[in-house]
């Protein structure tokens, strides 16, 4: 029962013709005048279209999406803006049809792409509960039987007969979410709805959603930019990027994959920016940092015993003395520094407008499997001595993290930060 597949998505793709999307709306007037002005050009275009040789700018918002959802699962869909998350949800909720592929869904689907869809400002809270409920697919009987619960959850009892247009935006959202939270489909599709409301209400919503899945065994597909919410609710995640599924696994790994997409493993020069993760004097700067394996391939997941290469490029904007690079591996949980390497790049004069690249190889021999946040530092002589003008640049936690997996050797460390060579002898 638990392993029953409720949604199976096969080769789903959605194509948009960009020409159709241009310029707000098309006026019939313009179309007609165009035809009258140049009837031959129009005919030519039409024949081309019919013959299928017309050049159309096509855009695949989604392509070759395949995955299955089992009963009772909570699946997160994450990706950057424009990755195709909302399009996927719209296809799943039948708002727009796919261009290709097929989806099979077993059970009643409720979709919540927006809270308060169809709320009418002139109608009272009470009336809107019924209207919104009906739009979300509830029957009048269902709404009536849950009415008190909905009102209690929203906490707007006093304003039940006030037109919704006089509600504060917070009340509006609370009422809307309460209605949505009380529909009970077998499969619930939710888009970024928790981004609204205050922290306390968000917590209440998350709790409610947790309850829905845990107690009642509902299946949920959840899109959010709120990684905390994803972490809390979802057991499995699908990472979309530019319309394609790039990753599918349990939430923890998917979030890492997602953070890699975000940074692309590449850095942009930002001279002298003193933000939280990028501290520097502006006199020099990392221009690129890549994590590579021994085959020079981009990757951030390594096994114990493998060698990781950090390739760093830099630029110098001011004259200085000496140039050093320092990398540390920090605990991703406590942020405490666990181990570090430091190398000298250059002794003596370092001139303005110099630039270069270095590679540091690190053998991951005695490290415990786990997740490590990376800290990169580049600076001059004085900076290390903590005297005089300090020239340095720091890239803290923007790349990676570095993930080290067990090599499946006997006696490997399973806890702690480093591993010791050991062997076992069984006596009798």
């Amino acid at each position, binding site marked *: 029962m638990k392993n029953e597949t409720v949604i199976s998505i096969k080769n789903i793709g959605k194509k948009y013709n960009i020409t159709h999307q241009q310029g707000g709306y098309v*006026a019939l007037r313009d179309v007609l005048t165009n035809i009258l002005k140049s009837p031959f050009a129009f005919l030519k275009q039409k024949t081309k279209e019919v013959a299928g040789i017309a050049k159309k700018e096509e855009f695949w918002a989604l392509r070759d999406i395949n995955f299955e959802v089992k009963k009772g699962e909570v699946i997160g869909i994450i990706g950057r803006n424009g990755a195709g998350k909302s399009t996927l949800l719209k296809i*799943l909720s039948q708002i*727009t*049809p796919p261009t290709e592929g097929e989806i*099979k*869904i077993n059970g009643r689907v409720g979709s919540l792409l927006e809270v308060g869809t169809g709320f009418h400002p*002139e109608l009272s809270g009470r009336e809107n509960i019924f209207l919104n409920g009906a739009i979300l697919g509830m029957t*009048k009987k269902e709404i009536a039987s849950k009415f008190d619960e909905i009102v209690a959850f929203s906490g707007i009892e006093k304003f039940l007969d006030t037109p919704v247009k006089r509600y504060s935006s917070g009340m509006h959202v609370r009422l809307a979410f309460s209605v949505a939270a009380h529909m009970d489909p077998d499969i619930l599709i939710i888009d970024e709805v928790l981004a609204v409301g205050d922290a306390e209400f968000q917590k209440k919503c998350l709790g409610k959603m947790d309850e829905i899945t845990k107690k009642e065994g509902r299946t949920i597909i959840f899109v959010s930019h709120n990684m905390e919410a994803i972490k809390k609710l979802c057991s499995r995640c699908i990472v979309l990027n530019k319309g394609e599924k790039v990753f599918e696994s349990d939430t923890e790994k998917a979030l890492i994959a997602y953070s890699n997409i975000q940074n692309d493993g590449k850095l942009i020069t930002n001279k002298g920016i003193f933000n939280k993760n990028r501290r520097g004097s502006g006199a020099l700067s990392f221009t690129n940092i890549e994590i590579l394996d021994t085959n020079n391939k981009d990757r951030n997941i390594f096994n114990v015993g493998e060698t990781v290469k950090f390739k760093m490029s830099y630029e110098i904007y001011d004259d200085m003395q000496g140039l050093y690079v320092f990398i540390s591996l920090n605990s991703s949980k406590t942020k405490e520094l666990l181990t570090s390497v430091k190398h000298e790049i250059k002794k003596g004069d370092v001139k303005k407008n110099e630039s270069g690249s270095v590679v540091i190889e690190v053998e991951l021999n005695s490290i415990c499997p786990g997740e490590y946040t990376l800290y990169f530092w580049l600076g001059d002589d004085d900076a290390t001595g903590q005297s005089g003008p300090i020239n340095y640049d720091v890239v803290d936690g923007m790349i990676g993290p570095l993930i080290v997996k067990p090599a499946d050797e006997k006696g490997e460390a399973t806890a702690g930060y480093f591993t010791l060579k050991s062997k076992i002898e069984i006596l009798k």
Partner: protein
Amino acid sequence: MATSAQTTVIRPKKTLSLQDFKEIWSHRELLYFFTWRDFKVRYKQTFIGVAWALFQPIMSMVVFSLFFGKLAGVPSDGVPYPIFVYVGLLFWQFFSDALNDTSNSLISNQSIVTKVYFPRLILPISTVATKLVDFGIAAVILIGLMFYYHFVPSLEGLFLLPLLLIITFASALGGGLFLASINVRYRDVRYILPYFIQLLLFVTPVIYSASIAGKYSWVLAFNPMSGVIQSARAAFLHTAPINWLLITISLVASIMILVVGTIVFKKTERFFADII
């Protein structure tokens, strides 16, 4: 198997099928709620409330009676002009309001169309249904006028009423579906439409009698509203014997309009959310 009653398959192409009608049936409560909403909202903040539904036809009746009945002396098949024109206006208002609002029904519910799935046909149908309620309210005046002028509808005529309403409903819905589909793509349609509807008023025997067209009056039969209004006058005011052939032609014409409208609507329906 607890809740495996429903299996949905989402595929690229979708054409009109029996499934659509089943779906509309299963969403009938939503149909009711949309109608209820439109009606409620319209009368919520207007000072004179429901009386508003009466105001429009009465004012039109007064103005038309004065200018066409009194001053221009338009013949009215031997019945007092006010009640003659009111019967026409009653049905015409239902038709023209329904046609106009239906063609805007998708655009005015844009936020719902792009966020929730339900059979899109529900929106236009509920819009026409709202107008049917208005019709019911305005019909009260007709009853009053009939008392005042001492008209008694024939029994046959009372049976005819539902049929006339069905024809009006079907024509307005069919035309509205067609226009709504175009309206989603070409937004200027909504500006042309009121003018177009006004023209239609003059080719429909609302303010004049169909008899002025003489031997060409049969041409008017292809305009379903022409048949409806002529028949309504025959049934309530006994201007002529009820012409069943005329009604049949109107019914067939309205069904054709509805079928064409529905096909066009269903064909473009799947792109609504993308281009609206």
